[in-house]
């Protein structure tokens, strides 16, 4: 009887075994395809951004032989000299065949208006050069740049191109004479925003992001950790603390634009802080990241085993000593990971900054917390909305920089966790 029963159970198991294995394989397959799909989307995103943006790291420049005319450049008044005229003369000298006034103007337009400022910098730093002829690489106009990079096609009718046949032949002439080259785009990293794509850079936005994040970190980390320590270690468990906990979790899920509105009402209208300043941006982002940091910090405090607390208390440490000598150092890696992830989120935020005037055209690189500033994602947004074609590649290039920064921050979080985390 019992023998029979045994056999029938084994039979039943072996009958279903193949199906169970199949089920597991199917499940694994679903998991793998989910990962493959998400990787595919990520690769697609990165590839399209890189394909559009990598050309922005190089900028077309033209070699001009500029005669630093002492008649134009007065050593005592270098700030107001007509540098543009020197650049135009040097550009015209490259095309001796150009005669009509109309054509001369078009030749002048091959060179960026930024050339005059580059010349000014050179002369101001080395006034002894005045009177000599110097070969200088100056940025070309954005349309020349687009043409050289192939973003303005040659094969469409002339009327539909922003570069005429005449200009195209001049450009070819410059290339043949080795006077027009793609060079590393330093302006992109050293300049603030500009309406001329060839002069626009991310330095202003990057500095704004840095100031904003510095404020956010300095405010949200200590406050967040203090809140977490109190809630986790000191606070009694009652209806009030439950309510606070629910609210913190809720805050973490609130759309960020709401924090912007709050910032507008409290920091700008009530406290009269300056509009568009990174200080206010930092304050608003602090509100936004606080819940994330509190939640992460509490989780990491919870993961410190009670035996450590009990041992410290057992050898006579006070509660304060237990926390500051033992619990906090052990929980710190987890808290920092939470903070970095919160910061990474703050770095990519635009919506709350819209309300406090940080979505603005700002040329000067901010030098302090109260200067008007914008941030990297806002810069991307503003460029994406500009009509000039050369801003398309710059938008993608700025996205690449932002992604690199985010990657670095997340990598730092992983590194900290692996290096300092202790398992029990």
């Amino acid at each position, binding site marked *: 009887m019992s023998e029979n029963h045994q056999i029938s159970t084994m039979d039943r198991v072996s009958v279903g075994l193949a199906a169970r294995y199949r089920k597991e394989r199917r499940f694994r397959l679903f998991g793998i395809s989910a990962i493959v799909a998400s990787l595919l989307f990520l690769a697609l995103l990165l590839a399209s951004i890189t394909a559009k943006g990598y050309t922005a790291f190089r900028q077309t420049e033209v070699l001009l032989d500029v005669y630093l005319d002492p008649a134009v450049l007065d050593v005592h008044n270098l700030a107001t000299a007509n540098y543009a005229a020197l650049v135009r003369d040097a550009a015209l000298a490259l095309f001796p065949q150009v005669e009509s006034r109309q054509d001369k103007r078009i030749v002048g337009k091959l060179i960026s208006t930024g050339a005059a400022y580059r010349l000014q910098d050179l002369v101001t730093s080395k006034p002894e050069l005045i009177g000599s002829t110097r070969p200088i690489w100056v940025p070309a106009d954005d349309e020349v740049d687009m043409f050289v990079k192939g973003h303005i096609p040659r094969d469409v009718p002339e009327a539909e191109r922003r570069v005429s046949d005449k200009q195209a032949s001049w450009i070819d002439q410059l290339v043949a004479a080795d006077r027009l080259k793609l060079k590393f785009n330093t302006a992109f990293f050293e300049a603030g925003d500009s309406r001329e794509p060839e002069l626009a850079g991310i330095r202003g936005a990057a500095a704004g992001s840095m100031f904003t994040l510095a404020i956010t970190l300095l405010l949200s980390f200590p406050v967040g950790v203090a809140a977490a320590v109190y809630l986790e270690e000191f606070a009694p468990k009652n209806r009030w603390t439950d309510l606070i906990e629910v609210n913190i979790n809720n805050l973490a899920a609130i759309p960020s634009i709401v924090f912007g509105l709050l910032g507008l009402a409290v920091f700008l209208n009530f406290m009269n802080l300056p509009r*568009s300043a990174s200080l206010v941006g930092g304050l608003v982002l602090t509100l936004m990241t606080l819940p994330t940091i509190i939640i992460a910090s509490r989780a990491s405090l919870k993961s410190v085993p009670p035996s450590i607390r009990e041992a410290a208390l057992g050898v006579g440490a006070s509660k304060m000593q237990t926390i500051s000598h033992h619990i906090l150092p052990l929980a710190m890696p987890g808290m920092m990971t939470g903070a970095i992830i919160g910061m990474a989120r703050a770095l990519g935020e635009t919506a709350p900054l819209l309300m406090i005037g940080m979505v603005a055209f700002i040329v000067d690189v901010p030098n302090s917390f109260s200067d008007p500033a914008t941030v990297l994602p806002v810069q991307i947004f503003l460029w994406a909305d500009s009509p000039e074609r050369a801003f398309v590649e710059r938008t993608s290039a700025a996205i690449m920089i932002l992604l690199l920064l985010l990657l670095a921050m997340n990598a730092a979080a992983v590194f900290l966790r692996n290096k300092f985390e202790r398992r029990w």
Partner: protein
Amino acid sequence: MQKFALSLATATMLIGAAATSMAADGRDYISVVGSSTVYPFSTAVAEQFGKATKFKTPKIESTGTGGGIKLFCSGSGVDTPDIANASRQIKKAEIETCAKNGVTEIVEVKVGYDGIVLANSKKSEQFKLSRKDLFMALAKEVPSPEGGDKLVANPYKTWKEVNDKLPAAKIEVLGPPPTSGTRDAFVEMVMDHGCTAFESIKALKSKDEKQFKAVCQTVREDGAFIEAGENDNLIVQKLEANPNSLGIFGFSFLDQNADKIQASSIDGQAPTFETIADGKYPVSRPLFIYVKKAHVGVIPGIAEYLTEFTSERAWSEEGYLAEKGLIPSPKNERKTIAADAKALNVIVNNKF
């Protein structure tokens, strides 16, 4: 550890103290807010101004015309903007709000014109539209095609049904959402005009203005008109990907993308620099900047910024703003406006 915590806490307190003491008490740069249509032009002026003069580069926010004027009118003091950009004239109600908040002297400067174009991909046929066609294609309710004055839900599916001379393509128009100034201008200049081609609706105008507006300005919601967001670049890209649709956007984007898209003519006029400037092209609007006179002399550089904006090297046919797509005002008009701006002549309220 304790020291670290302590120093962090001190830093926190310092920032708090700095924040409260740093209320906006002085400003050495001009603050400009307002229309996203004027933004590309005023930023170009600001940059030139910042480079050519000893003043700081003005800060320019793109808030939309309505939002900009609201900020501009919120009071007179250094914590409020000095200049508002607008893609339409300031309204009487807005001037009253301004006055109520102590902004009584406003200088109006008409800086030029902007055209609104309808364009499609070069891959398909160019359209020759009239404003009546556009009304019939895009309004939510139109007079019944069987005749009579009755309004019915828009039955037209293809352009050919609207007008025999148009191609038999499906009606699909990408345009900005109602929050956009471009949409307001399009509705006012195209739809309002187009619907007066019908006697029955025209009669409504004098009888029941509200009803008239509701009929003329309501855009259909059955998928023929697609709200494509405020980003004009996006609309241009979508037109390329979808050759069958038309897009509505500002002239400067047509100017920059003439190799990819072609503009439809409206009422027989193609949008070009010349037709918009002399007012032949029907869908164009003036652009303004409004300056708070009380701030001139308080915030450094406002008068000089106005001079730069109204200089021939900026806003003439040959100027750098024309390069960015601004359509200049006629020469005589420019002269008067520049003189008015220089003298800081304020808007007289009873003008409205």
